[in-house]
């Protein structure tokens, strides 16, 4: 049903096709109506994020298990390059050796995991949803395959980073020290400034976390949307005599171009997400 071709020949118009593709498969079975509803779980996001996480970690674990200090194989060399990159970034941003023991592996996980989740975008937009519809026998079944194009996925991770920031703030400065900082920074230690200071700090934490999650989400959501629009061009093949074939060629050209560009975005966004994770945790280590 939701393949581009069918979308053009059958009932749904372009708008319905796009909306259908951007609706999560959740535990209620239909699209979530309210903006926030914590009784709902997005099954597709959870499934694909765990799947990509397991695949990524499995390969890294296999390589790490056979790691040798002698001449490394190609896989090990590749992982070593990645690991040294992350380790160097962590070293330059987080200045606590002890914290790095957890933060650096966390950053590596973030990079690899986000990269793989983003990479789900490279699969044809209709491929997995179509297979899912065939399996369930329901031509209207929803499925979204890019976990990072779901705000829950990215905000979940950025909230995790926020929790780590709280943890390291308390760990490095002590609970009292951190509370003191919340009320005396950034403007200064004066009773009149306590409230503005605190509000600034709260805004700062919210802004960091929301922008952290939203940035990745926005990029991936927009990327997916563009892929959907490109797919619509190809779907117009069966349409009018002249425009149809031209749009199909447009699909091939634009689809190739966007996919190539998206390789860059996918990697860049994964890297940015990792770097911001390190930066925010690094900031938690520094007093104002």
């Amino acid at each position: 049903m939701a393949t581009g071709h069918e979308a053009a020949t059958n009932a749904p118009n372009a708008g319905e096709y796009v909306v259908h593709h951007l609706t999560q498969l959740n535990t209620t079975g239909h699209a979530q109506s309210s903006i926030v509803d914590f009784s709902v779980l997005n099954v597709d996001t959870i499934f694909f994020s765990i799947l990509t996480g397991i695949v990524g970690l499995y390969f890294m674990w296999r390589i790490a298990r056979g790691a040798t200090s002698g001449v490394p194989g190609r896989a090990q060399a590749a992982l070593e390059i990645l690991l040294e990159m992350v380790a160097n970034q962590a070293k330059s941003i987080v200045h606590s050796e002890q914290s790095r023991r957890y933060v650096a592996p966390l950053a590596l996980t973030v990079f690899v995991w986000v990269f793989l989740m983003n990479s789900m975008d490279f699969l044809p937009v209709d491929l997995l949803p179509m297979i899912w519809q065939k399996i369930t026998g329901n031509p209207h079944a929803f499925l979204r395959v890019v976990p990072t194009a779901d705000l829950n996925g990215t905000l979940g991770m950025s909230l995790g980073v926020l929790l780590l920031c709280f943890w390291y703030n308390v760990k490095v400065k002590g609970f009292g020290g951190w509370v003191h900082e919340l009320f005396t920074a950034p403007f200064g230690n004066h009773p009149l400034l306590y409230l503005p200071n605190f509000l600034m700090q709260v805004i700062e934490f919210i802004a960091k976390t929301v922008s952290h999650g939203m940035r990745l989400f926005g990029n991936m959501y927009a990327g997916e949307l563009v892929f959907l629009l490109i797919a619509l061009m190809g779907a117009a093949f069966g349409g009018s005599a002249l425009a149809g074939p031209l749009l199909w060629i447009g699909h091939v050209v634009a689809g190739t171009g966007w996919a190539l560009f998206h390789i860059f975005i996918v990697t860049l966004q994964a890297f940015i997400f990792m770097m911001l994770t390190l930066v925010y945790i690094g900031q938690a280590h520094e007093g104002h």
Partner: protein
Amino acid sequence: MNLNSTLVAQLVVFFILAWFTMKFVWPPIMKALDERAAKIAEGLAAAERGRQDLDLASKRSADVLRDGKTKASEIVLQAEKRAHQIIDEAKAQARIEAEKVIAEAKVDIEHEAMRAKEALRERVAELAVAGAERILRREIDAKVHADLLATIKQDL
């Protein structure tokens, strides 16, 4: 873009994955990297040591060679000296031998001369006696003049 409990699930998954990486992926690779770095450092140090050893060995071999040459020339010198000595000794020995032979020869010659003189003296005395006998046979009795003849023989 609705918010729901997926967010919490994702947060939990996030920490589990990070924990797994920290536990099973990061340490072995880091260990391998550190060990390799240590090995390389060790190898470089060994190479440096080897180079120093080589320097030392070549210096020592040069020393040994120089010593050997000095010793060899000393030995040659000594040998030459000894040869000269032996020649000198041999010469001296030969001279002594020769002198000894000459002295012996002289003694022999003297003996011979003495014996010859003796013999000659006997012969002359006999001849003189014979001559005198012939002269005196007619006039002198040999037995009467024996004392006189003995005195003459003595003087010869």
